[in-house]
């Protein structure tokens, strides 16, 4: 086992609530793991244990080779943490926060000031550096939060929902910054409830629900788990032969709407799929108004894995 972050069988309960129910995870050096799950899935508890803020009831975890319970001090030297419940100091200025964290992490006064200036510049906060955090916008605050976890250039980073509550442009900006970090070779564990965020940033994605891992893989592997793409064709006129014409491409159940105009089916992904479908329908003499091939999104994967339905489909089922 030479993962930089690894956990085995983490269990944690708060009273009657089971927050973690035997969670395993591993992040190799230099990789980004996206931990994806809905509210209450146990993401924050997992991060709190891995960053030494909470102790597991059972199970073990190693970060940078150190046990998070027995060698908490050594773990703290190796990590940077950005979490919504372990925040920067609202009453101090951005610069004062960074200097304070530098000093508390062992930097000398001069080095702490130099590093603060550098980070403010890197995060485009120089102009706001001497204003108190309370006057920052949500995006600025989150950037400072992230900067604060980078003061000592830690090799291991934990970002707990780094963009929750941000507007789209601030999110895009955070993503760009996080991608840059990864370029620096840090090992990163990122939690999120946004599927596109995990898709954008993470090498591998761990889907958790009710305190345990329910699936893990690259975004592509997870998408492959639920089969290929989804096809949706809108016919010009109802035609009972449409399912037959589509049969060579279809990998499951074909659904036709009440008026017989819309046909939907899961299909096997392959290059040039849309072109071949249009051609096959044309050969069968069927004219169409619209054809769409959706590659599966992580949303589809997530709902598939957690058992929630994506949408309430009222189409009739027809055997292919």
């Amino acid at each position: 086992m030479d993962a930089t972050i690894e956990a085995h069988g983490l269990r944690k309960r708060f009273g009657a609530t089971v927050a973690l129910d035997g969670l395993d995870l591993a992040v190799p050096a230099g990789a980004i793991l996206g931990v994806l799950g809905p509210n209450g899935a146990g993401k924050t508890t997992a991060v709190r244990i891995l960053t030494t803020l909470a102790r597991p009831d059972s199970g073990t975890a190693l970060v940078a080779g150190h046990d998070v319970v027995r060698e908490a001090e050594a773990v703290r030297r190796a990590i940077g943490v950005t979490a919504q419940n372990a925040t920067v100091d609202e009453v101090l200025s951005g610069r004062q926060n960074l200097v304070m964290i530098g000093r508390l992490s062992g930097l000398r006064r001069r080095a702490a000031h130099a590093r603060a200036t550098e980070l403010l510049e890197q995060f485009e906060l120089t102009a706001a550096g001497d204003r108190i955090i309370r006057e920052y916008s949500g995006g600025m605050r989150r950037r400072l939060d992230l900067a604060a976890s980078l003061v000592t250039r830690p090799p291991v980073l934990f970002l707990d929902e780094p963009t929750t509550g941000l507007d789209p442009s601030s999110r895009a900006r955070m993503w760009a910054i996080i991608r840059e970090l990864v370029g620096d070779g840090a090992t990163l564990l990122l939690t999120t409830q946004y599927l596109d965020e995990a898709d954008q940033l993470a090498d591998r994605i761990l889907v958790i629900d009710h305190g345990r891992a329910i699936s893990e893989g690259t975004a592509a592997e997870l998408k492959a788990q639920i089969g290929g793409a989804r096809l949706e064709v809108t016919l010009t006129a109802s035609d009972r032969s449409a399912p037959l014409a589509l049969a060579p491409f279809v990998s499951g159940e074909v659904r036709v709407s009440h008026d017989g105009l819309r046909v939907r089916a899961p299909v096997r992904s392959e290059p040039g799929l849309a072109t071949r479908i249009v051609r096959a329908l044309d050969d069968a003499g069927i004219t169409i108004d619209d054809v769409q091939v959706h590659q599966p999104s992580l949303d589809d994967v997530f709902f598939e894995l957690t058992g929630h339905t994506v949408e309430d489909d009222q189409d009739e089922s027809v055997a292919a």
Partner: protein
Amino acid sequence: MRTMLRDVAVLTVRNLLHIRREPLQLSDVTVQPVLFTLLFTYVFGAGVLLPHHGSYNAFAIAGLLALNLTTSSMGTAVGLSTDLASGAIDRFRTLPIWRPAVLAGRSLADLLTASLCATIVALMGLIIGWRPEDGIARMLAGFALFLFFSYAISWYCACLGILSKGPESAQGLGLIVLFPLAFVSNAMVPTQHMPAVLRVIADWNPVSAVTAAARELWGNPNPSAAIGAWPMQHLVAASLMWSTAILIVFAPLAALLYRRRTTE
């Protein structure tokens, strides 16, 4: 050892910056002393008769110090519970710092704030006619007794702050406990005319011991000298014993409660 001191120093400065930026906390140690001094000496002063026609203003300053220091130590409870609720302390806990520095930095910042508060009360006193009559050494000894007491009480308030659910409840809890402590004492009026039960409490109240000790050291009117209760006959000893006892009980208790509160 050096890194421990550095952690304490960094967190002390951080807490002082907080007090400077929080209007409410700042006014507790700056505006309130001025206001209390004026209110008590001009509004109440005329109605309180001291034995031997002593000057109420000279009598009142030690009491005002006790009043201001005791009630402003609520800031410890509020500050600590704010830090616990806001996640500031969680951030510190992810850093490789000396763990007790969080509490030590808090109590040290409060000691420095208390010194500022004491200075303002003393300056107000000088303006309204109070004088330490018995020399600089005894004047400083009186202030030292007050600051020691204030430091001890801040550990008690640290316990309240850790136990309370949030800043508001810390404030409420502090008010309920600290106001009776400050007022059921000889701070603003001689205890002689209080109802019997209240008088016994007041004569054994640590606030009374410190206040009367300072009056004695400063050569100010001290009606408590005529009271037979042990603390009133051994003022300096009683005041040191009270402060030491409070410190010995509440400093380790605060450390224990803090540990429990930050262990999940």
